[in-house]
């Protein structure tokens, strides 16, 4: 990405930027397409190339190695990477979801209505997932005996089928997966969002490389503003956003995309915190870190400033 158009706005040469979706091209990631379609990026002076992401680990790798400039990743996952000392070369510059969308899903008729009902049940998720990783903490906070819950493995793509066929009683899944769960199982979904008990935990945050943040803070700010504008617009007009996604991504299903966006709204505009979309609070980030340290997932000593560049985050 060249820095020629540092000051150009809307006209002249557009700055080329590569943006990665969080994972694939689903409704939850439609806002980037919306920002592009509605011209928000262009107005900010960007020509954005949107690529399909691979999830937290892969996306961080692509950003730190300079293959992509921006991408949303799960903050918990990002903290884990930093905690392991793996990736020091990226910073978060905006929040996408104020609260984590991680949840345990079940369906009606399996006798799960509250967290407590999970005891003696089987919940499947991928081996390294955040849902699985944070479950002990969740269980503690929700008053569940974690040792009484079985956590078999499952490939991401296999989880729905496992739940549907009754092989397991629950699966780890983002809350936006609700329509899919219901479509697949043909039953009403029961959702136990982690955010119910872990209110501090952020969901996805927008990251960029430390280098970019340091060298072109202005450009980073402009980008995240444009993206957040798209996010706002998508949440306000989910149906239109779904159509825009479909237009760019023929494999997408506009209805389910719209449904995802509607579900996502509550997590982006956190009712509890009342914060403006995109803000990151140092205190909350510190509490997230503490949470993970409490779960023994990362060593002590990590500070919020190591992972978030608070100079660049949108201010409330």
């Amino acid at each position, binding site marked *: 990405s060249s820095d020629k158009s540092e000051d150009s706005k809307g006209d002249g040469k557009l700055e080329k930027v590569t943006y990665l979706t969080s994972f694939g*091209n*689903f409704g939850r990631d439609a806002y980037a397409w919306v920002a592009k379609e509605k011209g928000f990026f262009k107005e900010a002076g960007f020509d954005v190339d949107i690529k*399909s992401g*691979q999830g937290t680990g892969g996306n961080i790798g*692509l950003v730190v190695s300079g293959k992509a400039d921006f991408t949303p990743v799960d903050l918990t996952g990002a903290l884990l990477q930093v905690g392991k000392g793996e990736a020091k070369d990226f910073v978060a510059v905006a929040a996408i979801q104020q609260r984590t969308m991680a949840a345990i899903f079940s369906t009606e008729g399996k006798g799960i209505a509250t967290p407590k009902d999970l005891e003696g049940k089987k919940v499947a998720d991928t081996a390294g997932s955040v849902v699985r990783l944070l479950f002990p903490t969740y269980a503690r906070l929700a008053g569940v005996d974690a040792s009484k819950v079985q956590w078999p493995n499952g490939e991401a793509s296999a989880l729905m089928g496992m739940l*549907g066929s009754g092989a397991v009683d629950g699966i780890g899944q983002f809350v936006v997966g609700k329509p899919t769960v219901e479509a*697949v199982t043909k039953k009403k979904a029961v959702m136990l969002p982690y955010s119910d008990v872990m209110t501090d935990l952020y969901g996805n945050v927008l990251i960029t490389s430390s280098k970019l943040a340091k060298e072109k803070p202005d450009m980073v700010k402009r980008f995240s503003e444009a993206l957040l504008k798209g996010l706002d617009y998508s949440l306000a007009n989910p149906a239109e956003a779904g159509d825009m996604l479909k237009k760019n991504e023929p*494999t*997408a299903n506009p209805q389910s995309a719209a449904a995802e966006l509607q579900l996502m709204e509550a997590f982006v505009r956190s009712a509890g915190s009342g914060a403006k979309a995109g803000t990151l609070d140092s205190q909350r980030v510190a509490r997230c870190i503490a949470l993970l340290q409490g779960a023994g997932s990362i060593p002590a000593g990590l500070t919020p400033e190591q992972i978030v560049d608070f100079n660049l985050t949108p201010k409330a």
Partner: protein
Amino acid sequence: MTEIRSAPRRTSDASTPRGARPARTTDAVRTLVPPLLGLVVTIAVWWLVTEVELVHPMALPPPQDVLSAFTASSDRLIEQTTLTATETLIGFGLSTVAGVLIGLLLAGSRFAARMFSPLLVAVNSVPKIALAPLLVVTLGWGQPPILTMVFLLCFFPIVLATATGLTTTPAELAELARSLDASWWQAFRKVRLPAALPQIFVGLKVAMPLAAIGAVMGEFQAGEGGLGYEIVQSLGIGDSPTAWAAILLIALFSILLYAVLTLLERLALPWVRATTSAR
């Protein structure tokens, strides 16, 4: 003595009695009926399994659903198939060239063979999904990482088959080449390679379906289209019929490419069928 024509089992030589002309159509029938029958049986079993709900439709949707998913977006799916098939073919072509060259190297030098074989086995035994981040990070998106994935998945059978073929030249032919003081390259080109071709074709036939998988896996990670991308997207929104339509399209073009390969083998190596006995 009765008028029974002596007719033992068919031998390897082309021993068709003269005057048996109208064999053309029967031949076509004989070639096509069994695979079609296989197809019908497969679909019937599939239908039955889903009909009695042995497996959940999310895991394996019934054939009729897959069919309607296909017709619903046939244009797009066919486009994706073309893309993936092209990638498969290009990747397979490159892998063949590279694989044969590596095989050649291993066959040419015992030292190289000893030095690199473990490495090749290692690369081949690493689950390719684990390499995905590395691929995209170093190669970005689009063709390069996808073709690399194809190569990583299918090079090994080709290398091994080539090396084995080239190092098991019948002693009498190798001795002939030596007696004519053939250079290494001449012996390779005129004797070892032709002698190794049947073996190499086995490698290619093993590699062909792997190449298709490679293309799909590449698309999982680095694709911007293609059947692999289609599968990820469809599974993500719980649309397993479309995912299965994509899976079947992969299977279908693999079968086609495999058949072409088999035909090619038959045309290129008539002598093999004549000097060996199938049944």
